[in-house]
């Protein structure tokens, strides 16, 4: 419950306060969001499986975001930023789909 409250509060704060992100970090925000989404759905699934752990969640979230941004940054420096972004999105998208499918099985038992 507190978690959902924190999420909503964060979204509202982002929309209202409009904090400015450094221009250098701006290209990596979308990919970081997708990576974070993967961590969040993974946590949600673990929660439904009854094996959720705060420490694992925090570490997986932070490492996901940092690694995704780092890969894209590396790709930008090598001139394959677009392609690497696509690769990261594909892998994370597959994981998100699978996790959401598992969550769906938990919720609807189907």
């Amino acid at each position, binding site marked *: 419950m507190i978690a959902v409250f924190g999420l909503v509060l964060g979204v509202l704060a*982002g929309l209202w306060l409009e904090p400015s992100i450094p221009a250098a970090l701006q290209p990596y925000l979308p990919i970081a969001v997708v990576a974070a989404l993967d961590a969040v759905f993974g946590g949600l699934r673990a929660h439904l499986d009854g*094996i959720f752990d705060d420490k694992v969640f925090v570490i997986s979230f932070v490492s996901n975001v940092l690694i995704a941004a780092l890969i894209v940054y590396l790709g930008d420096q090598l001139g394959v930023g677009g392609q690497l972004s696509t690769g990261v999105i594909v892998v994370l998208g*597959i994981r998100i789909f699978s996790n959401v499918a598992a969550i769906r099985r938990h919720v609807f038992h189907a």
Partner: protein
Amino acid sequence: MSDKPDLSTGEPRSDSSGDAYVGLLTQIMTQTLDQDYLDVAQRRESSSGDSPPRWQVGAVAVLLLFGLMLGLAALNTAQEKPVVAAERAELIEQIESNQGKLDNQQATLASLSDEVTKLQQLLAANVADDRLLTNQLTSLGIDAGTLAVTGPGVEVTVDDSGYSVGESGGVILDSDLQLLVNALWQAGAEAIAVDEHRMTTLTAIRFAGEAITVDYRSLTPPYIIEATGDPDTMPARLLETRAGQAWLDLEANFDIQFEVVAKDKVSIPGDARDNLLYAEAKGAS
């Protein structure tokens, strides 16, 4: 080394954790849950301890951060949309206006190349006219005597006998020269000059005092008459004329020098006077 796949059989290797080796894509699609959750859950079962509360705060903070990122990303995309759309519209507008310009310029190009073609045809026609007129002018100039000419022809040298008439010698008269020049015309001469004076329709050969004048300029014997024409036939034709016969008589009876020589090249000057003094073309102003 035992961890490596057996190449000869292609059997999947088994790793230390006991999981069957699977392809990367299969692994991505099947192992979606972080292994750590399971590991931690197993450890917790054995030790039966809850995670410390500071990690719970961390989880909430992370979720807050996630919400913030989500909101910001959505905001960014929404803010960029009108900008992108405006840029796109502007580009389309530019393309259309430039396309219009291009069409205009292509039409101009087509009309200009049509014009060029017409002008080229006109130029060709003018050049042809010009050549024709130049040819006409040249032949007219030769006929009228205004153009200097060179070509094959004959050279006639005549001279007084050197002693007076009474002593059965002779002096060439203006009428004799007139006859000779006319005989040359008759023999087919195209242009004639007497001592470098071009014979034109207005040239007079006169006797003034003791000397023969051509074009009002006095000459002294011997007189050299040059004429362009066929060098093979002209001497014979000249002698066949009545004047030619008369000159042969003069040569025989009065010891006057009369020499006709065919030449490969004679040069005949033009007459500087190239305009008529009195006559005017009918219709010309």
